[in-house]
């Protein structure tokens, strides 16, 4: 099906009549206090059904582990491109055009954008998580030779090919079918159920053609004239249209600015000669903990650089 172009992705699906299309107004500052969001112009724009801000959503906070991530920024903006309002309209294009009319009055605050700044300000997501076996420090100190250095790795956008898109179809008894370009349908199910305050089994999530996208879902419910947007990993975003529509890759990336796997990392590392424990705490979505260890024979390496190379590449 892939090679024939017959595989149906969510953007290829026909949608039910009167489906609403969502687009977001995004923050253009990295950190700030929201004083006021002006949605008047957007509400009057052609084809607009409604405009939603954080105050309209009862169960605002979501998150894969802790529910501390607002679907729409309420009082504080914490990253560039954070969604501050959502527009529902009769077409994706109208929704996007209306979203661009939303203006936010924001008092800009100092932004922490590098690991170094975060370390010096002690601005951490949570208490450090330590996983310890043995006494590494003592072993390193007792070793005949040791090396130390630092490792930093820049962020890398995944650039999944299929953009973030979801289609939510309300069915009977507060149940809902959600088609989402997600990698984690279970998580989408849990979060949508949480936001809608319904049991998990009321939400069916369908992922077509497993993609590299992160989870994003949009639910539109015309009966209640209410939209609920859910996104694990904080950023909320959605676009949907019946046929082709101009998805905007820049917006697509901004809206998921806070997805941790894109983040750069930096770590101070120490080695001792006999046993090298080289660990990277990798903040991939599953918080993978990667440990590689090996025992190098120092005679094998003619120089310090060769030795380091061996350490790094093994």
């Amino acid at each position: 099906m892939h090679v024939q172009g017959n595989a149906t992705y969510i953007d290829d699906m026909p949608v039910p009549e009167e489906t609403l299309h969502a687009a977001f107004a995004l923050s253009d500052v990295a950190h700030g206090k929201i004083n006021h969001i002006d949605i008047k112009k957007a509400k009057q724009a052609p084809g607009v059904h409604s405009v939603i801000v954080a105050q309209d959503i009862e169960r605002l906070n979501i998150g894969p582990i802790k529910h501390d991530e607002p679907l729409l920024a309420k009082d504080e903006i914490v990253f560039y491109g954070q969604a501050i309002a959502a527009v529902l309209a009769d077409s994706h294009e109208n929704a996007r055009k209306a979203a661009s009319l939303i203006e936010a009055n924001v008092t800009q605050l100092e932004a922490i954008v590098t690991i170094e700044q975060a370390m010096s300000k002690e601005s951490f997501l949570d208490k450090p998580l330590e996983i310890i076996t043995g006494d590494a420090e003592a072993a390193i100190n007792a070793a005949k030779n040791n090396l130390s250095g630092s490792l930093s790795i820049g962020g890398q956008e995944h650039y999944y090919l299929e953009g973030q898109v979801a289609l939510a179809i309300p069915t009977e008894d507060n149940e809902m079918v959600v088609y989402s370009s997600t990698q984690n349908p279970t998580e989408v199910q849990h979060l949508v159920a949480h936001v809608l305050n319904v049991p998990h089994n009321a939400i069916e999530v369908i992922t077509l053609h497993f993609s590299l996208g992160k989870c994003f879902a949009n639910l539109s419910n015309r009966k209640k004239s209410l939209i609920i947007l859910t996104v694990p990993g904080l950023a909320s975003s959605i676009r949907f249209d019946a046929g082709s529509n101009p998805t905007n890759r820049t917006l697509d990336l901004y809206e998921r600015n806070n997805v941790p796997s894109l983040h750069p990392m930096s770590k101070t590392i120490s080695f001792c000669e006999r046993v090298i424990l080289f660990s990277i705490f990798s903040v991939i979505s599953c918080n993978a903990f990667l440990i590689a260890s090996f025992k190098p024979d120092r005679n094998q390496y003619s120089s310090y650089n060769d030795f380091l190379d061996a350490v790094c590449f093994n």
Partner: protein
Amino acid sequence: VHFLLNQNITPTELGVINPNTTVLQWLRNNNLVGSKEGCASGDCGACTAVIGELVVQNKKQVIEYKSINTCIALAYSLVGKHLVTIEGLMEGKDLHPVQRAMVEESGSQCGFCTPGFVMSLFALYHNEKKVNLTKINDALSGNLCRCTGYKPIIAAAFSAFNEKPKKPSDYYTQNRTKIKQALIRLNGHQNVSLSYTNNGNTIRYDSPTSLQELDQVLNKHPAAKIIAAGTDLSLEITQSLKEFSHIVNVSSVKELQAISDSHSELEIGSAVTYQDASASLFNYWPGLEAFLHRFASLPIKNWATIGGNIANASPIGDMPPVLIALEAELKLRKNSNVRLVKLEDFFVSYRKTKLTKGEFIESIVIPKPTGKEQLITHKISKRYEDDISAVCMAINIAFSGDQPKSIRIALGGMSGIPQRAHQLEKALIKHWDQENLTQQAYEALKKEFSPFNDVRASAEYRLQVSANLVKKSILMIKGENVVDLAEITQMSSFLEA
């Protein structure tokens, strides 16, 4: 307003649609959703389709098929052409050989990029008898894959060719004559002039076929937006949601498609695509072959025009610095009056040019090399084939013996316009043989350029890399073996090195 679509010999009618509609939007609105939208800016290739056009080769009329990015091509530019999409490859229940090869070599994972890759491979399959890795990489230069990786896709290209029979092997080769006749019939009346009205809002579209017709349209509507291929301009539609109220498409104007090779000059019509101009350019400046490989992906070069690239006035643009270094001039035309403007004077400030309302570029006139000149070009960018430069540099040196007699250097990405580097030229003549040339080049650049910081590079990086490129150029001229890391595309050759 008709074109041929896939295996349908009966022309497809576009009807009156919004002239701002792209080919991809038209396809997807008409339930041909196999072509995907990944970026809507010609970067990812998920929307790739193949376009067939009547051209004259060796005095014979033939159909030339080429891959394009449908997301940034206007639907009305299909008029009189043959569009082949992913839906048009199968014959009955049989897969096309390139589709079969992709399946057999496991060339698809999430599948979203797959239709685009298949179409690029289809164009390659259609146009080539034999392939090598270079040709395959070139054909796939406009396609990005984020999960499978390129190895099985390249393997699919090889395997499709391994089994390629000598005789015509697919619908499009078997039915060549029938398709050609249909296209000839379509091209009898090519001039398009229409207007589309929606909510009382009227949008005009004109596609003249001769200079005279173009003069008339622009004389009457000097404020109309001139579009050639639109590989950059269309982004205003797809990314900024703008709508042009009057589009004049110049890509069908016969005179603007001509290349004339006179005694001392090469004159290239402004609507000549990069792919069509390449043979003439490489003939006189062989070094440009490597440069144009970096310039853009194949689908972009198949569609983008030299005139559009210049008139669009990107501060980077890539070809303008090269043409400035080559002392090119532009023939600007308005109401059938023609004036010549040096390209280095053409760019006034960011996105502003010397073009007046209703005036357009008729051709680009490049003086031919006299034999004692050497052109060196550099492009610094992150992606290899399809990226906007951080810095683009062109150096054209005329020698007297082994010493430089005169030097022309132009830079892209260093200022609001593609700009000549006068100070650097002087410094280079003065310090030609000196050890501290990089430092001298850096100082000279700093006097004349205040580049900006952006996502591609910092100002400091731009200055330093430009100075380093000057040094590299001179080492190249002096015959030193300069390894170009960007050219090392294969891991195996990297390891051997």
